């Protein structure tokens, strides 16, 4: 509360905080809006504070339902048992590897599609665009895809998490829009006259100039792969081939009723199920939360380009 009143005072002193839409007085409506936004922000932060506090709290405090947003009886037993058990740690490492491979290959495919299609002169451009856009609007569905993966010998295989999703029409559109509006035709024409081939122009001129969009799209690819696990449900049976988010889902699905996390018997002894589960959630979420503040601005840029294109 104290913080808010400070803001009110400051607001009253500021004569024109945002230039064009300046109104000189701080009104009640400003306060209402600030409170509204603050409450919404709180709903995004508070649950994670609670889970984080729980994950490092002492068992007795958790059982006594005494933990809110501050840990009590701090210890890291739950995290130690996660490492001792090893399955989540393995899944994490495996997910990182899959995500990295997916991101690199995804960017490669994306560039291969977006660069030629960004050229107005390319003959058959409409045809290729059509072919590459149809899958965005119409897919065959789960079962035909499943049988296709079976025919391709990809079931229960790490690569089924990589290849089918590698080409994304949405990301291609973003890259194409960027190339069309940011790389001047004249630049490429002069290189062409100097005898550079199309691929040389791409690698020597276009790619270095597209670093911002490559950063954005690599994050799109990486977070997309990291977070989605429906394909794990369809195609993967072997435990070792499951991504870490799917592992977490399975733990929660089995715990939602019985209220117990299932790492392994040995791990469950050291901490109560609740603490252990909180630790598992934090373990899976932390990479995203750590990366997020740095990556966020790139995301917004990409979303803007995508938005303008519809």
């Amino acid at each position, binding site marked *: 509360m104290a913080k808010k009143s400070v803001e009110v005072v400051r607001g009253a002193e500021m004569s024109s905080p945002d230039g064009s839409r300046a109104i000189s007085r701080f009104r009640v409506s400003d306060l209402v*809006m600030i409170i509204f936004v603050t409450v919404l922000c709180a709903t995004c932060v508070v649950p994670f504070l609670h889970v984080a506090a729980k994950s490092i709290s002492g068992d007795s405090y958790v059982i006594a339902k005494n933990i809110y947003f501050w840990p009590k009886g701090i210890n890291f037993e739950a995290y130690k048992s996660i490492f001792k058990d090893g399955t989540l740690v393995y899944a994490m490492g495996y997910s990182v590897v899959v995500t990295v491979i997916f991101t690199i290959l995804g960017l490669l495919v994306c560039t291969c599609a977006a660069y030629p299609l960004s*050229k107005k002169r390319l003959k058959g451009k409409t045809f290729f665009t059509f072919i590459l856009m149809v899958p965005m609007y119409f897919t065959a569905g789960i079962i035909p*895809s499943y049988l296709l993966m079976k025919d391709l010998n990809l079931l229960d295989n790490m690569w089924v998490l990589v*290849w089918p999703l590698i080409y994304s029409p949405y990301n291609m559109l973003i890259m194409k829009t960027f190339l069309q509006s940011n790389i001047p035709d004249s630049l490429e024409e002069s290189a062409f006259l100097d005898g550079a081939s199309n691929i040389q122009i791409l690698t020597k001129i276009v790619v270095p100039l597209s670093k911002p969009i490559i950063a954005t799209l690599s994050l799109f690819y990486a977070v997309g792969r990291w977070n989605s696990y429906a394909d794990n449900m369809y195609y993967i049976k072997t435990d070792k081939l499951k991504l870490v988010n799917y592992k977490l889902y399975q733990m929660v699905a089995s715990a939602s009723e019985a209220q117990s996390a299932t790492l392994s018997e040995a791990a469950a002894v050291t901490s109560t199920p609740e603490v252990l589960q909180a630790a598992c959630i934090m373990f899976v979420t932390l990479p995203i939360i750590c990366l997020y503040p740095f990556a966020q601005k790139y995301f917004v840029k990409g979303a803007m380009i995508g938005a303008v294109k519809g």
Partner: protein
Amino acid sequence: MAKSNASALPKVKNTMSWKNSFKRDWQLYLLLAFPVLMVILFSYAAYPGLRMVFMDYKPAKGYDGSAWVGMETFVKIFKDKDFHRALRNSVVFNLLDLLIGFPMPIILALILNELRFPRFKKVSQTVLYLPHFLSWAVIGSVAYTMFRPSTGLANIALMNLGVIKEGIPFLTEKWHWAVSYLLIGVWQTMGWGTIIYLAAITGISGELYEAAMIDGANRWKRMWHITLPGIKGTVVTMLIMNLGRIMGSNLERLTAFENSQVKDFQYQLAVYIYEKGLQNGKFSMSTAVNLFQSLVGVMLVLVADRVAKKLGEEGLL
């Protein structure tokens, strides 16, 4: 917006012959071969599999061994009680999703746009985007931690305050579940959804606001008469895109909030397709429902696009 420029561009006729064009751009076609191969191999190759909707497909017999049955699968589906339930749940929940989930980012964008302190605005935007970057597994497990009847934080807090005596089954009783499911859905998308509207708002000319202010229009009048009309095109585009999702729902979101007490409402088309198909082996039925779902989705988008154009909006396609 930029989309109108793209469609308004004069069509340049490419007069060069295929031979010359290929001679000059063969490397570009070579690059294109990679993504084209990918879509053919992983998207188009699956389309022929759709013929199983006219078959009684048995996994053991394959496409060649299974019998053709014509429209029988569809007849069977439309008599199937499970399908009725899944269809009803999908339509009801997705409509409700649209009803509360669609206006929320617009309202939030309007409010963020009016916020007085740039730093506060920036920080709150960063925080509000966060749920978009979390998987449904994380959101679901955090939600269970918060809302379990006896050990969830929300219930503990309410009980300690003396508001309630027994824990509220936020996620384990179907009517409570419906509300929680919808609100968590709104919560997940609202922040990220503002980006597109905020981008549209920055495109509105500042002179309009100045003129309105000189004429004595207050903040609400300016919001109503300038900002909202200024983003109308974007709103319509987003609405069309969202209409296409009336049928489909996100399997990850549904399964993240799955438990036996809420099966009544949680059983939507995505769950039907997954459970009937991959778990119960009724491949033909599952695929037919899947096809029905995507065709209705495509049709809704086309109709909505027509209507929008009739009403003088830009439309999507």
